[in-house]
């Protein structure tokens, strides 16, 4: 790999992954090796470790550094209203069905810093559903959940998000949802009040509720096939009959164990309804 000044063999990666299981109970062995190796290298380089031995020693003996490892190794890139057709479909196809329920429970699995959770809260507010909704936002990385709680995102992104919002069928002035403070956009607290935060590890944790809609977008691309199947089984078990499962634009239920139990929405967006 081309990261300047550090090297990392496949055996080194296996050692690290083994240490994490033994010492911290975190199992990354079913993560895509190419991605995780690159991210470990990036971390070693950013934190200026001179050797693998030094890096491994620190990780094994410093629980604070382990926290940093989890924060840095997981991918926390996300946007508001990314994939406008997807959000249009949520607005026009999925929410009208959910509107008929007395209470709406939505799970954002692998929510990262929460941009998608706030996008969903805006959709719910605009369809007058927010009051009867609960948005469960979970991630393996506790540090990102603090950001979800704060509801503060970089102001520089707002122009792009506003365009996404309009293109996905939003009718309001997007800036009415936040207050600008220096370089940050602080989202309206009424949007955050129905968000429930918890750490949850798709590798090891189980179902914790029954939902009408589960979103897990651009999370499972980092998993190998057996872990993808585990996560999908968990989502299946956590969905109400006729509930919806939403995946990222390059993810699919095709060729998975649970595909027979779901039917994709008609416009072929990456949203499936549990039918069995």
């Amino acid at each position: 790999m081309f990261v300047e000044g550090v090297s990392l063999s496949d055996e080194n990666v296996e050692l690290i992954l083994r240490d994490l299981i033994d010492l911290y109970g975190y199992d990354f062995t079913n993560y895509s090796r190419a991605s995780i190796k690159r991210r470990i290298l990036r971390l070693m380089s950013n934190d200026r470790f001179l050797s693998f031995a030094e890096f491994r020693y620190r990780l094994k003996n410093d629980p604070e550094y382990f926290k940093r490892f989890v924060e840095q190794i997981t991918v926390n890139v996300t946007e508001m209203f990314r994939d406008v057709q997807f959000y249009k479909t949520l607005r026009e196809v999925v929410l009208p069905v959910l509107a008929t329920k007395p209470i709406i429970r939505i799970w954002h699995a692998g929510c990262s810093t929460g941009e998608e959770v706030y996008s969903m809260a805006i959709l719910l507010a605009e369809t007058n559903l927010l009051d009867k909704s609960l948005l469960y936002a979970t991630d393996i990385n506790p540090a990102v959940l603090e950001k979800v709680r704060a509801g503060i995102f970089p102001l520089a992104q707002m122009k792009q998000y506003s365009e996404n919002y309009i293109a996905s069928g939003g009718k309001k002035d997007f800036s009415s949802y936040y207050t600008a403070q220096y370089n940050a956009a602080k989202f309206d607290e009424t949007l955050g009040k129905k968000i429930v935060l918890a750490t949850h590890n798709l590798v090891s944790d189980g179902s914790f509720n029954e939902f009408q809609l589960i979103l897990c977008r651009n999370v499972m691309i980092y998993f190998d096939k057996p872990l993808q199947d585990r996560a999908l089984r968990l989502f299946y078990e956590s969905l109400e009959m006729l509930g919806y499962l939403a995946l990222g634009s390059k993810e699919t239920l095709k060729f998975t164990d649970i595909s027979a139990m779901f039917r994709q929405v008609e416009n072929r967006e990456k949203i499936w309804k549990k039918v069995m």
Partner: protein
Amino acid sequence: MAARFDLLVIGGSAGSLSVVMKIIPLLKPSLNLATVIVFHRKQSDDSALIEVLAGRTDCRVKEADDKDDLLPAHIYVAPADYHVLIEKNKTITLDFSEKINYSRPSIDLSFDSAAEVYGPRLACLLLSGANADGVDGLLSAKRQGAFIMVQNPSTAEVPYMPQQAVEKVSCDLLIDPDNLKEFLAAILE
């Protein structure tokens, strides 16, 4: 006749599509070669691009999906806005992490991760473009024994990217899109 490589990775940015259109008709299925193409592009034109390319070759052209096996006689095009990494078991991993050199997909990442798996059985080709993506990946691929080809900057619509490569990497072959005989010979030899 089979190629002497198992995988060809082509990276291109501004001005590279016309060159790819000239190259892919030469990639006959009998070469037994898998190809990955990493373009910098906008999100909107995915299916149109695949169709345009498919019309020019007998190989199967598809947008790369997560977990795809890299098969001979197939051409995989990186989806807009995802990095394409190659796993040890010769499958594709899509990755939505940070942009690198302002680019996602990153040509550097694909060259680099392909070289880790394929080593000397990999050929890399860097084409026309306006940024510095690709150069670090070529350097890394070169160290791992891959065969390095770069479009001759004097033939490139936007010479910056191949020029950077020529200055920093010891290339095995400079290619001229109007005379691809040497390219084909290098793949076969």
